[in-house]
């Protein structure tokens, strides 16, 4: 139906997450209609990102430079770290503009069913980094799921022997801002009750 290069473009776009055949067709036809300069810039940006972006050797954030911008920044508080499962979570934390410390990206959550254990995550690297740099507090910003909870417990157990005085905290869990109590699910409500605070 489509000429060969266009069909190939649609096929490639279809491989992207969340893009089905209709969206791929729409995107491909849109791209073809754009000026050549714009398409070149897009292709160049794709290639450059792929060739230069690497994991930061310290915190495992994505970065074109090693160490990453956050690890190099003198404005950051080196005594306060935030442990996240994924770079997307790091970005969510950064969007708050409240956190001024450093990060450590674990690269996922422990999931025996998917064959992900301690060795598949950056847990040993975190232990070595804590022993070396001796932060004062670690904040676990990890999604409150069964796998998230277990990952936190395991990391805590690994860190206790090397840093017995390290303060380890986790984000509060419970009801989201602007939500209505009557529509909250029982699991969330039970956890909110468990983590209630003094007025």
């Amino acid at each position, binding site marked *: 139906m489509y000429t060969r290069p266009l069909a190939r473009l649609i096929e490639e776009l279809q491989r992207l997450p969340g893009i089905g055949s209709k969206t791929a067709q729409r995107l491909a036809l849109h791209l073809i209609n754009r000026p050549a300069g714009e398409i070149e810039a897009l292709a160049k940006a794709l290639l450059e990102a792929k060739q230069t972006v690497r994991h930061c050797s310290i915190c495992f954030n994505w970065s074109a430079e090693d160490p990453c911008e956050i690890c190099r920044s003198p404005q950051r508080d080196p005594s306060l770290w935030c442990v996240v499962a994924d770079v997307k979570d790091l970005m969510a934390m950064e969007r708050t503009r409240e956190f001024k410390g450093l990060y450590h990206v674990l690269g996922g959550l*422990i999931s*025996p069913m998917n*064959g992900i*254990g301690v060795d598949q995550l950056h847990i040993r690297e975190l232990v070595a980094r804590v022993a070396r740099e001796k932060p004062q507090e670690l904040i676990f910003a990890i999604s409150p799921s*069964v796998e998230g*909870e277990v990952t936190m417990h395991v990391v805590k157990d690994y860190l206790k022997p090397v840093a017995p005085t390290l303060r380890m905290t986790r984000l509060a869990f419970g009801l989201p801002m*602007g939500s209505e109590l009557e529509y*909250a*699910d029982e699991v969330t409500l039970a956890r909110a009750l468990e983590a209630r605070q003094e007025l």
Partner: protein
Amino acid sequence: MSGRTYRVTGINLKGIPLGEADRIVTILTRERGLIRAVAKGSRKQPSKLGGRMEPFVVNDLLIVQGRWSAQTETSQRLQRIVQAETLQTFPRLSRSLAHLTAAQYLAEVALLLALPDQAQEELFVVLVEHLERIERAASERAVLPLLTHGLYHLLALAGFAPQVNACYFCQGELVDSVFFSPQWGGLVCDPCRVAQRPGPIAWVSASALCALGSLPNSTLPLPEDSLPLAAWLEAERLLRRVLEHHTDREIRSAELLASCYAVPTANGQGSPAFPEGHSKEWASA
């Protein structure tokens, strides 16, 4: 609409992300066996489905069947969860790696044994019962016997339970050297091993024999600490071979099981208390 909706009670066994904010949940239901359904928006904040779609949550669900053409593959025929009311949760399964590994292990076994579109009340009840027991286990050490027990009961439901109290061939008492054949499904005494040559076979230690012997009971009669962990790991591994023999699939959670029971060695490195290649490994008789 009522013709296309139905109500079931089920436990979430597995969830995979779908698109931006949705999730496909695999649920073992009492009334219809294994079903896969989409929980729209369950990864988004705030969502009333959110917490209810986590693994190991038992819900009363209202499900709407999708419309699909006759050519649509079975795997593509997704239904949608429109309402969920939580009946039971297992929050303490997240207290240790061993608790989670054991729970996911049993969930994987249930996923292998469950059939779609068929009432499987017994499988549902047995799985929930064993998850409750694992959740109640006070220590990581106590989890392993409970996992092995749960595995045996799930195998028994599927009709794969191995013979664990007498020789499979002669039904005789087990004395001296005892062997285990996953292919024949059970223990084999030494004379029968020589006479019958039952294919790949493993030698069974006395403590593992004791562990295996206690499994047909509805509860474990032995105090948790009377048998070494190695015996339970060996019993679990033998039962796993039976499951793998019948289903031709591996249990991924089992890979992490050994690391849950790591013991410090002289060089300070943790190593599995009972490595995979323990004792006299599978030999052809």
